[in-house]
């Protein structure tokens, strides 16, 4: 009985892994003519957001729009456009939000600065807590000293 249990679990696990791996190759990332172009293509499609499914890149998404945007990137690379020009053309049509790494501009400054501000707040809070505890320990010591002296 126990033995069967294990086999069933293994079979299920195998099926699940197969399903997962099949799912990840359910759509083809199209090949580029040269390895250099392929490298640029792979990098670019990972930094562009699929606007329909906003937390995925166009490399990770099987939806139609992501496919069309990958085609757009592919065609622009083959047409001899630079990475910067391709990013610019995407921003011109979809706005900064299509870039996972938006440029530093007045409208996007908070995106870049907020983590550091939050970190600073965290440090201040941590320092205060540590100071408070240290002073409490010091007070305790003085009590102990008082006790022993008595």
């Amino acid at each position, binding site marked *: 009985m126990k033995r069967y249990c294990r086999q069933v679990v293994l079979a299920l696990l195998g099926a699940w892994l197969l399903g997962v791996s099949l799912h990840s190759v359910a759509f083809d990332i199209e090949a580029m003519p040269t390895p250099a172009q392929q490298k640029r293509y792979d990098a670019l499609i990972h930094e562009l957001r699929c606007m329909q499914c906003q937390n995925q890149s166009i490399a990770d998404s099987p939806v*139609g729009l992501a496919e069309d945007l990958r085609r757009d990137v592919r065609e622009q690379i083959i047409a001899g456009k630079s990475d910067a020009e391709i990013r610019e053309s995407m921003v011109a049509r979809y706005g900064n939000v299509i870039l996972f790494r938006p440029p530093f501009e007045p409208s996007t400054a908070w995106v870049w600065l907020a983590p550091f501000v939050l970190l600073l707040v965290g440090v201040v809070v941590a320092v205060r807590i540590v100071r408070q505890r240290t002073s409490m320990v010091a007070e305790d010591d003085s009590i102990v000293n008082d006790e022993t002296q008595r």
Partner: protein
Amino acid sequence: MSRFLIPAAIFLALAGVLYVAVVHSPNKSTMQSALLGKPVPEFSLPVLGNPGLTLTKAQLAGRPWVMNVWGTWCAACRDEHQTLLDIAGQNVLPLVGLNWKDEDDAALEWLRQLGNPYSVVAVDRDGRTAIDFGVYGAPETFFVDADGRVQYRHVGAMTAEVWQREFLSRLPRGGLP
């Protein structure tokens, strides 16, 4: 007292940020078009039901027009269809359809069954023109002024209220020439 001051200040700051964010995006899936104030992208597309004809940006220049992006695969497009028919009945602005990644037969059948609100429908079978317009989901509706500039983009089903507030209000005072 000061124990609560800092957490309260942080809470208020965070609440402020979130409030601003919420107010500025009435619908979380709605993004402002990157094309606002910019010229409509160039396009040259076959006309639905008349593939020998071509629709270009130049043919529409000189007066304001509205472009509605739709497809028979899009559920919200069915929801807004009656509103589009009502709008077409007002006869104020030409409604240009952009049939996005669809089949001609299905699109024609849709218009036969539900009625045709469009002055003309351009066929964007492979979705290139939609990308140039920054379309990320159907339906989307654009208001283009007489100078050929995008003045507004509505994402999601059109409603009478949105039409009144965001489209009709953008017409020049005194109506059209």
